[in-house]
């Protein structure tokens, strides 16, 4: 035993250190993924015995109008959430200067990311609220007729995304601020001597050095858009009449909410969402693998 240990110590030790983490990851992430896939072939209310129905849940998904709405909303989320990246970069560059008290301004800009999404949702609900919300009153002042964003089926998703962008921009900003700290001053100096400034400086000198920050910013924004749930739940419950649903919220509604408990159908939605996420996640992993220097 001890001879075997001595011979293989260097090979075994990393695995032993990894073991607790791997075990928990398997228990709480890997196994549930396969369980969800398994449940998606059943009709199950969580109480009675499950009934095997094959792919019927997936067939139903293809004709479910709520699924179509959720899917399109997720797409809108993905596209518009990407605005957080340029806007975060803009604010980061704006704040990347040495004036008196800049740290206070930086922390104020970072503030929305610190508060909980639930609080963000509530603040924006009041901001949009009919009859007393500031935005409603402003629109009423300007156009004569108030618009209750969260009651309008065509605008509601944009209203929620705007609320989501507020903390997301702050997050991206902080990523870029740390990135800007690492921009090599000698390169900037050299570029300046060569006469680069403004857009050209940003595009050819600064941005290439910010690539790692950009990569992380895109990753967290994509994941953030796909797992948007708290804001939808807090601000509209998916309403009015389901027009602000996204996949994650629809999954929750079907599987766990008051009128749901279609565990199998909810699991099928989860599998679809997982598949969409996998497209992005495998892309990211592939890129990280490719960029790994010591391979």
């Amino acid at each position: 035993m001890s001879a075997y240990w001595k011979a293989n110590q260097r090979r075994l030790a990393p695995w032993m250190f990894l073991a607790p983490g791997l075990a928990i990851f398997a228990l709480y992430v890997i196994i549930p993924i396969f369980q969800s896939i398994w449940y998606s072939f059943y009709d199950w209310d969580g109480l009675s015995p499950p009934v095997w129905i094959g792919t019927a849940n997936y067939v139903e998904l293809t004709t479910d109008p709520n699924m179509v709405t959720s899917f399109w909303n997720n797409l809108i989320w993905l596209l518009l959430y990407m605005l957080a990246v340029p806007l975060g970069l803009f604010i980061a560059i704006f704040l990347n200067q040495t004036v008196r008290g800049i740290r206070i301004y930086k922390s104020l800009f970072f503030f929305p990311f610190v508060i909980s999404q639930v609080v963000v949702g509530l603040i924006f609900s009041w901001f949009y609220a009919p009859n007393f919300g500031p935005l409603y009153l402003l629109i009423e002042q300007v156009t004569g007729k108030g618009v209750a964003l969260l009651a309008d089926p065509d605008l509601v998703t944009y209203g929620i995304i705007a609320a989501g962008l507020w903390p997301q921009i702050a997050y991206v900003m902080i990523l870029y601020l740390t990135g800007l700290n690492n921009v090599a001053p000698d390169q900037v100096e050299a570029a300046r001597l060569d006469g680069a400034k403004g857009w050209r400086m940003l595009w050819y000198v600064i941005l290439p050095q910010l690539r790692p920050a950009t990569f992380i910013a895109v990753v967290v924004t994509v994941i953030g858009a796909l797992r948007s749930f708290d804001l939808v739940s807090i601000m509209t419950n998916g309403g009015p009449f389901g027009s602000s649903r996204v996949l994650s919220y629809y999954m929750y509604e079907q599987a766990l909410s008051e009128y749901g408990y279609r565990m199998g159908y909810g699991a099928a939605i989860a599998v679809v969402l997982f598949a969409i996420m996998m497209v992005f996640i495998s892309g990211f992993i592939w890129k990280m693998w490719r960029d790994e220097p010591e391979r």
Partner: protein
Amino acid sequence: MVHLKTGALAFVAALLASTSAFAQARELKYYADFDPIPLAAFEALIVDFEAANPDVDVVLQNFDHEGYKTAIRNFLTADSPDLANWYAGNRMAPFVNAGQFQDVSDVWEANGLSDSLASAKASMTIDDKQWGVPYTYYQWGIYFNKDVYKSVGVEVPATWAGFVENCTKFKAAGIDCLTTGTKALWPAAGIFDYINMRTNGYEFHMDLTAGKIAWTDDRVKATFAEWAKIQPYITANHAALEWEEAAALMVQGKAANYVMGNFSVGNFKEGGMTNDTLGFMVFPEITPGIPRAEEAPTDTIHIPAGAKNVDDAKKFLAFVADADVQTKLNAALNQLPTNKNSSVNADDPFLVAGFEALSSAYALAQFFDRDAPAEMAKAGMEGFQQFMVQPEELDNILNRLEQVRGQVYK
């Protein structure tokens, strides 16, 4: 040292004494989802019950109201109490069908409840057996702002046509004739239930919620045609409002009427309305001659299948069903007792009106989300909300509901 020792001894003795005292009292575990006022009322009821049954110790575990709806699914299968709160009608069907609630027909039999709780019996019955005991219900109807009626100069309508005509006058005065807040969807169902029951009658409504009638049926369209008459006069942004926010509109005089349950009286009065300014009327007749049915959602107590102390649980159910107990309980709850031999507080005009409306009603419905299965209820309420925003989409809404009906009732 000696002192410490005697002190410790006394402590141990006290411990022993207290455990033996507990050992004598049989524990009765009760899981519930009360808001503060009902919780106080039930704590008083439990004190009375323990006084009548000194050998039983009721342990009440109170849950958050919304969280309870999820929690009940877990504790019924995992760690079952002896008693659990739930609701009547189709809402209890999943638990009954999955064998999670016990048949308590013998409690009904032994205490003559079929007679004293006759009005609630149908909603407690599945497969000719009773699965729980109701302890309270409350009426729905139209609550209105008397001051607004006075300032616009209209009379409380006796008929649906009168109600619709009033709406045009409220509109001219810049007041919402009917307000509602459908962010949580269910307030929309109250309006549908009443218009449908008044247009097509109780039996039709029950058949519709039971999935026996197509949503594309002409009689359903007739219901929506009546609804369309008042649709332009409903508060515009109701989809973004909680029901309490809509109640505030009525308190402020920006809206005249509100189709609501009696629990809303507390909100109106907190906002400053009094018995002189807040009015209640039974929803007006639409199709002449149809027997008048009312909504009366019923709250109930059940014995889970996994209960350990079934004998005492049944004693508790019999106690809760008692006429005097329900009188006292509902006086504290500010709701209506389900036992017909109970009495209501004569000083509260809304309870008196409600008691009259329900006891003279032809039949009682539970509420759309308790009469219809969960999935149908959700789709239905979304459809109702959409109709009030986009009435021109009616055909699409009904087709979608009909599609859901095909999936839900198999």
